[in-house]
């Protein structure tokens, strides 16, 4: 069952190579929809208190002790749902526009979905690392081949223009940064398995390694090898150097899923691998991680607040959001971690429509810079309302699910120390600034010349409205996720809580 979820997208991507060009996009859409259907099927049969479910475990490389082992629990189920949901608008949005070399484009997009799902479902440490590394390959091609160079000359007078960016250097930066982390993680993963086996039978099963435990001294360095990979992927504050350039160069539909889902794999990795496997080290470095998380929140919010490129506003707001999520996880408190899981889903659901809206704004104004924009709401009330909902969710307005998520996280942080929570809450305030500024400068004010206030087309509405609908529904019943993930989150942080006492 889980295998079919993982491989369906790739299979449809490959079918797309064989069918005539004009059908390729629709084959891809079909693949994504079927994957969503399968994941809904899993969700329907999922028991929140049942621990690891739908387990698949076959030997893959017996010579190396690597198994093809999959499973789903209360944390991964929601991230799998997020993934399968998020890919549909990205693919549909592309399908409604013409794409160069469509067969390859959709193959890469769907291969990205396959590898992301694989990372969320893998229960073998090496399989997880493999999928984690694999994720970056299709996105390297997506960003590199379908991205575009951004010249500094695009910028209008008065706006602090970003420097010119070439696709090649941006994608290279991205992949080098990401792989630096994940290669160290590969070493760390193998070391964790070998050390925990201690001469016994070598296995990479996450559960077995957790059960066997690692000596404290080894935990300390293995922790950082894993943390490097996850922090780069998110990206967290000092390791975000690849983010601005690649975000500016990337094609927007691919960027939407990249920002929505791939960043969560890092946070998920902390919850699934780092905390249970390296509880002593996690406890030891709790303060460091919290400092990094808070720094990400403040830095990301401040940057989002000053940037004028819409992609960068969203990109840095992601840095801040991921900071919140990390803080929630490293609070070692069930409320905080549950909030983090909820927030992962929330952020993913909000970011996808946000980036697609940026693409639509660019179609109307020919620019992605905030400076010369405005007035788009004039003749497009529906478009404006959709954007308003997305902006409000981003700033975590009370009654939105994001509000609940951040509230839970702050609550968890409060248990660690009031100071942490107070500093982090500055981020919440800043979020209101940048989200409102983004909305105001695009939708209100007079319409500048050359811009076109055009109502959202029916087909685009078909893509966006369901996404926004899910955001609204989730605002009413966030407890679905909170309760669903409770048992899994508790078992993830149980060991580290034990140690922290």
């Amino acid at each position, binding site marked *: 069952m889980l295998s079919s979820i993982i491989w369906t997208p790739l299979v449809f991507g490959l079918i797309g190579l064989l069918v005539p060009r004009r059908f390729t996009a629709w084959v891809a859409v079909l693949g994504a929809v079927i994957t969503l259907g399968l994941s809904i099927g899993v969700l329907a049969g999922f028991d929140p208190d049942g621990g690891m479910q739908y387990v698949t475990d076959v030997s*893959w*490389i*017996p*010579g*190396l002790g690597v198994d093809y082992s999959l499973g789903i629990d209360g944390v991964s189920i929601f991230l799998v749902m997020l993934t399968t949901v998020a890919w549909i608008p990205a693919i549909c949005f592309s399908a409604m526009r013409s794409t160069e*070399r469509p067969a390859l484009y959709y193959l890469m997009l769907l291969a990205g979905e396959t590898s992301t799902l694989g990372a969320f479902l893998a229960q073998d440490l*090496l399989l997880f690392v*493999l*999928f984690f*590394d*694999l994720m*970056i*390959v299709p996105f*390297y*091609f997506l960003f*590199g*081949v379908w991205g575009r160079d951004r010249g500094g000359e695009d910028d209008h007078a008065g706006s602090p223009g970003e420097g010119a960016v070439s*696709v*090649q250097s941006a*994608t*290279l930066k991205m*992949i*080098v940064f990401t*792989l*630096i982390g994940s*290669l*160290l993680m*590969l*070493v760390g993963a*193998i*070391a964790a398995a*070998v050390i925990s086996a201690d001469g016994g039978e*070598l296995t990479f099963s996450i559960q077995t390694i957790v059960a066997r435990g690692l000596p404290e001294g080894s935990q300390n360095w293995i922790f950082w090898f894993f943390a490097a990979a996850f922090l780069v992927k998110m990206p967290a504050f000092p390791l975000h150097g690849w983010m601005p350039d690649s975000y500016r160069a990337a094609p927007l539909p691919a960027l939407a899923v990249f920002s929505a889902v791939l960043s969560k794999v890092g946070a998920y990795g902390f919850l699934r691998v780092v905390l249970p496997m390296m509880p002593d080290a996690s406890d030891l470095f709790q303060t460091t991680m919290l400092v990094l998380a808070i720094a990400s929140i403040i830095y990301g919010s401040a940057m989002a607040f000053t940037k004028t490129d819409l992609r960068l506003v969203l990109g840095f707001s992601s840095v801040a959001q991921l900071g919140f999520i990390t803080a929630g996880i490293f609070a070692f408190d069930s409320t905080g971690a549950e909030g983090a899981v909820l927030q992962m889903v929330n952020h993913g659901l909000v970011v996808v429509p946000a980036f697609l809206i940026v693409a639509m704004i660019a179609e109307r104004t020919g620019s992605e810079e905030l400076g010369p924009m405005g007035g788009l709401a004039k003749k497009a009330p529906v478009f404006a309302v959709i954007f308003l909902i997305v902006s409000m969710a981003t700033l975590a307005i009370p009654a939105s699910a994001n509000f609940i998520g951040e509230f839970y996280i702050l609550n968890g942080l409060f248990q660690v120390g009031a100071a942490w929570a107070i500093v982090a809450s500055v981020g919440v305030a800043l979020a209101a600034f940048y989200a409102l500024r983004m909305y105001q400068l695009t939708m209100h004010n007079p319409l500048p010349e050359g811009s076109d206030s055009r109502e959202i087309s029916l087909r685009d509405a078909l893509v966006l409205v369901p996404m926004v609908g899910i955001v609204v529904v989730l605002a009413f019943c966030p407890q679905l996720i909170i309760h669903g993930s409770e048992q899994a989150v508790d078992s993830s942080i149980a060991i580290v809580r034990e140690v922290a006492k």
Partner: protein
Amino acid sequence: MTFDAPTIDYAGLSPIIALTAGLVVIVLAAVFDRVKRFGPGLALLTYAVTAGCLIWQWNADLDLVSGALRIDGLAVTLSLLAVIAAAVSVLLAIGDPSETQAGRSDWLALLTGSLLGMVILAQATSMLTFFVGLELLSIPLYALCGTNLRRRESLESGLKYLIVGSVGSATLLYGLAMIYGASGATGFQAIADGLQAGDGMLSDSLTLVGVGLVAVGLAFKVSIAPFHQWTPDVYQGAPTPVTAFMAVATKAAAFAVFIRFFLVALGPLADQWDVMLAALAALSIVVGNVGALAQTSLKRMLGYSGIAQAGYMLAGIVTATQAGVDALVFYLSAYVAMNVAAFAVVVIRERQTGFSDDISTLRGLGREKPLLAWPLTIAMLALAGLPPTAGFIGKLYLIEALIDDDWTWLAVMIAIGTMISLGYYLRVVAALWMSPAGEAEGDAAIDTASLPPQIAGAQADPFEDPGADRRWYLVAPALIAMAAALFFGVIPQPLVDFAQHAGDALSVWVP
């Protein structure tokens, strides 16, 4: 007086016999104009028969020729890799100017001779066969490098390789002599026994200097830094089919004897040489990867990358365990696939552009000729160690073997080296897919002024074959190698079994 002739195990010797017979036939065929054009076919037939004999002897595990040779899993697997590499070179050389200028059969005879040296080397268990095999491997290669008679670079590379290679051989010979002096034996097993029996011989400076010199000599052959300087120049100058052969087959054979000599003959000294080899491996990883960053010539880049890859593989010997040997053989097999895919595309591209291997000639290939772009892309991703390719599993295997034997720092070095390597491997991918097809500035046609003085009666012929990407014997190796690199990345177990067959052969000597 009775005289007992040594028993000759014809079955065990069959790969060597087949190859020798084939060599004789190829040389004789050169005399007859009518059969001359069947040269490549004859060579391929010879290799097929040899491969058949090797597979026939798959489970063999016995000493031959009074213990001078030994056919076992290690010999069989690594000889097979060399034979495959040679077959690919024969295909890639069809119609290549180097082959036609050198006289087709002569070229093929040289290649087959070198391959014979490799097969002997992979089986060598005595210092004599070791050295004879190594020279038989090297001397035809020196000549092969210079077979592109009208290109100065080719001649230069042949000469350079000859000089550096001779220095390497001489160093090795000195080392062997010293070890002989210390142990009083030539057979690998006898050396180990002699060293252990001799009083204090394990830490005697005569032994240690000998070990050092042997390591240096072998490092020259497999291009381990700091004995690598010849590699980029020779790789670039030599005709590309020869470069492909050198890059892949030489490594396979030289690593076979590297493993056997160090783990069997010098096994008792493992604690002395492991740190030295680890340092060489680490240095190689750094030098190779950093050196490759600045290259614009694809062949030079692959040369430097070969240095780094040799460093990764050497790490497998450092562990002195069976798992290390398994990992090395696995990596080497994957390396064959990735390099064949890369070099085949380079050959095709060179023929299309009048012998330019500049990375800029690849621009826009992804859009125009996906059939060429994909093998090169997969080769680069595999060399860079990305999933889902055999390169990823190979790195995984090596790192696992290293950590298992407490060489974590070397495992981290491999990870760091891999990070650096992304910088140049992905530059190729970016050129293929992410650059508009611009006709390369300063088009690559041969600069007539730089040609060497004309050989009497010969015309300088700027060779160009725009249809090279439709020739099956060039495209098929690229596609098959690409498929192999992907297949063994997704289903690695068959290749793991292959590699473990090599490691099992050493189970008597190493843990």
